[in-house]
């Protein structure tokens, strides 16, 4: 039962990301053609010039939306054939020591460009835009809760514990956890509850 529920949650998560992704391309179409032209030049410049162009980005915004929208715009307005497009970055690619070609990826944190797999370049930029959009809308809660359900937390607090803080009536050896802080205890309790559910389901099966 527990595993089935988790699978459902995973599918929901996938659907959410799909929907958020569908909204992103429409935003790309609104960008300014002049800015897109400039960014096309920056796109195919040498790494040194890329660093110079990167310096123009204001450091206050880690993921400025107009910047990334303008990056995506040229691909929407000027659809390149797959092979023709793949040919152009190959000219500018630098071979790493591991004989792996990488595309320079703009990053605000590091001054030097980070090289990534050319196949994943667009995907990474798309995901960055989705994450920036989610953060700008204050949709993502960054701080983690020590527990998810109040009732389960209270039940775990009421259970008797032995020396070292372990539960007395636990049967499995999987209860071992490194950290002993209060948050970890609560998290361990959640794990114990899930293990308990597994025991219940296994009993039903047999």
């Amino acid at each position, binding site marked *: 039962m527990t595993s089935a529920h988790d699978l459902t949650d995973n599918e929901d998560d996938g659907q959410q*990301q799909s929907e958020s992704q569908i909204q992103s391309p429409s935003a790309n179409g609104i960008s300014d053609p002049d800015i897109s032209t400039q960014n096309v030049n920056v796109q195919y410049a040498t790494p040194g010039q890329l660093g110079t162009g990167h310096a123009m980005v204001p450091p206050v915004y880690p993921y400025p939306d107009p910047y990334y929208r303008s990056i995506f715009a040229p691909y929407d307005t000027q659809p390149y054939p797959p092979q023709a497009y793949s040919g152009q970055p190959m000219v500018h690619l630098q071979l790493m020591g591991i004989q792996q070609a990488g595309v320079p990826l703009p990053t605000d944190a590091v001054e030097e460009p980070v090289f990534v797999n050319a196949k994943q370049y667009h995907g990474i930029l798309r995901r960055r835009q989705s994450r920036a959009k989610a953060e700008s809308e204050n949709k993502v809660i960054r701080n983690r809760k020590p527990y998810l359900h109040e009732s389960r937390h209270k039940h775990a607090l009421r259970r008797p514990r032995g020396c070292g803080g372990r539960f007395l009536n636990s049967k499995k050896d999987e209860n071992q956890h490194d950290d002993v802080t209060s948050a970890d205890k609560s*998290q361990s309790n*959640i794990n114990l509850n899930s293990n308990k559910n597994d025991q219940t389901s296994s009993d039903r099966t047999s």
Partner: protein
Amino acid sequence: MEDIGGSSSNDNNNNGGIIKEQDRLLPIANVGRLMKRILPQNAKISKEAKETMQECVSEFISFVTSEASEKCRKERRKTVNGDDICWALATLGFDNYAEPMRRYLHRYREVEVDHNKVNLQEKGNSPEEKDDELFKLSNRGVGL
């Protein structure tokens, strides 16, 4: 296929615009269990390691799914299916993962057909058997 669509609509209704931790990340207990399978018996995993892996695997799922979703958008399709995921893995350069995933998908569909037959005969046992066989398939997948 239809279940995914149904769950997405339910999810839209439930979420008031805030993405909770349990909706954004995989459950930490399941992640820890998967990490434990590859380690020796007496090894321990810190909570920080589980949380870091939680972030990594959740982002990877979103990364691959967004690539598959982009393909569906261009083809005017609404449902992301298993073939789209396999295509996205290959397109992103994860060729070593795409091939085992295709084999898994093929066997999954075989099991699906068998269970539809079993479900016609006996309705009560189908979910448990399905879970067991899928679990066996996932074990074989690890072997690949």
